[in-house]
């Protein structure tokens, strides 16, 4: 029998032994492992990661193929549609990957276990961000190879620009994913639909398939206030004029920093509010 008649001193959390800005890589790893186990255990989940990006790419790819063969202008715009589809998928799937991993906790009624464990909000968010990249890579990499096979469009041919596009789009997707997760935490599953639909609000405004100049004048400042707009404009500049617009990427980066900070701030405030209102105990509808 262990004789421990007192409550003992406060010890540092064992998971924090290898400190990393107050966080524990072990706890982040635990959450990534949890999502990996989940993905591995369910082939429909894996299939879903590849299915929609493939359908999108093939549909838009054939449309572009048709237009390119029938209109002079569009012939010059080689690859912009497929490029836009693939980049849009990074933005959309990045946010969805983040939100779905979060929703898994709500669906499985596991959030209480996590919130009462030593896992800190920043560790939880970090694990969700990493998993969104993992999910995206599982879904998007095969599709990029299909784009080469079907339409001769090599996304990797964008080189360094692709890295800049990817990084900026992921930052936006995380910022939105973090914000939406906060809303779900605070408002329960009634807010789940936001996770699926919020990015579609960005589609017309960020000018995925057309230049910003297409929008009415009063709407253009709104478009320029959104980081992905710079990425899609940058992609068109690269594919149509062969110019990498570093200035656009830097604008996007600055805006993303603001979006990301605002997303994290909102998440922490909403988590605080959920704790105040007892919403974490009722994670259902």
């Amino acid at each position, binding site marked *: *029998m*262990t*004789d*421990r*008649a*007192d*409550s*003992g*001193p*406060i*010890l*540092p*959390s*064992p*998971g*924090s*032994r290898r400190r990393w800005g107050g966080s*524990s890589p*072990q*706890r982040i*790893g*635990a*959450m990534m*492992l*949890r999502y990996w*186990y*989940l993905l591995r*255990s*369910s082939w429909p989940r894996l299939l879903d990661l590849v299915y929609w990006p493939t359908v999108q790419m093939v549909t838009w790819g054939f449309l572009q193929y048709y237009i390119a063969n029938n209109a002079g202008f569009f012939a010059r715009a080689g690859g912009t549609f497929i490029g836009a589809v693939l980049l849009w998928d990074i933005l959309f799937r990045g946010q969805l990957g983040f939100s779905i991993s979060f929703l*898994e906790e709500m669906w*499985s*009624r*596991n*959030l*209480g*276990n*996590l*919130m*009462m*464990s*030593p*896992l*800190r909000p920043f560790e939880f968010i970090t694990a969700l961000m990493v998993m969104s990249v993992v999910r995206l890579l599982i879904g998007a990499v095969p599709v990029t190879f299909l784009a080469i096979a079907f339409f001769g469009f090599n996304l990797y041919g964008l080189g360094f620009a692709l890295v800049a596009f990817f990084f900026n789009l992921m930052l936006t997707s995380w910022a939105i994913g973090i914000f939406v997760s906060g809303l779900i935490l605070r408002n329960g599953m009634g807010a789940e639909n936001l996770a699926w639909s919020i990015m579609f609000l960005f589609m017309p405004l960020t000018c995925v398939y057309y230049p910003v100049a297409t929008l009415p004048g009063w709407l253009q400042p709104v478009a320029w206030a959104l980081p992905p707009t710079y990425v899609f404009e940058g992609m068109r500049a690269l594919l149509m004029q062969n110019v990498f617009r570093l200035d656009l990427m830097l604008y996007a980066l600055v805006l993303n920093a603001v979006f990301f900070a605002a997303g994290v701030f909102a998440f922490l405030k909403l988590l*605080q509010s959920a*704790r*105040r*209102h*007892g919403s*974490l*105990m009722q994670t259902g509808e």
Partner: protein
Amino acid sequence: MCAMPAPVPPPIAVENLVKIYKTIPAVGGISFTLKPGSVTGLLGGNGAGKTTTIATIMGLVLPTSGRLSVLGAEMPKERYRVLHRMNFESPYVEVPMRLTVRQNMTVFGMLYGVENIRERTAELARQLDLTDLLDRPTGRLSAGQKTRVALAKALINNPDVLLLDEPTASLDPDTADWVRGHLERYCRERHATVLLASHNMNEVERLCERVIIMKRGRIEDDDTPAKLLARYGRGTLEEVFLDVARGEGIHSEAAQ
């Protein structure tokens, strides 16, 4: 001259805890302190404030006012200093169903910073009769087996403070008795402090050396089971519970 040893903080200390959801009071200014190694029952009808009290102690709910400390750490402000020494089981949360029992133990072991997770999992599996179930998805287990998994998760880090919210709810009498036996053994061996919310009076009588009875967010009574029985002039805690719930007060002549 010897230096005086630093005073040992109580495992759980609650002082004037108030929780109001918008305008609805859930807990109305309760205070209690638990002794190290004690098992205390938290009794009360539905809506008495038991779950809110436990959730507030764990930091899942923020108190409206009052002070809370666990193992000397101010809650919820300092909760990350002690959460690795606490754990809980509640019917309001579940262990992920798609993961196997072993995978769940690994994930929660990592979250709680458990060393030698493999050995700890095997040890818990042996104690809780889960060895043959380790590689089965948790969702495919029976209710009794799932409860044992939830208990294994609650004990993965050998907690010094264990909060249990109806740990045997919806279990058949045999499994419930088995779970109680294991809890008894764990508390005895680890000298852990346990706060147990339950509707099952037999469970409370068997496990708890102290009983706090709550009603409408307030503490109605707080004593050992024997003293409560004597004070209310009743033979079982269930009768005492009914007296308190129905507002019939103390029956024994000695008390009057």
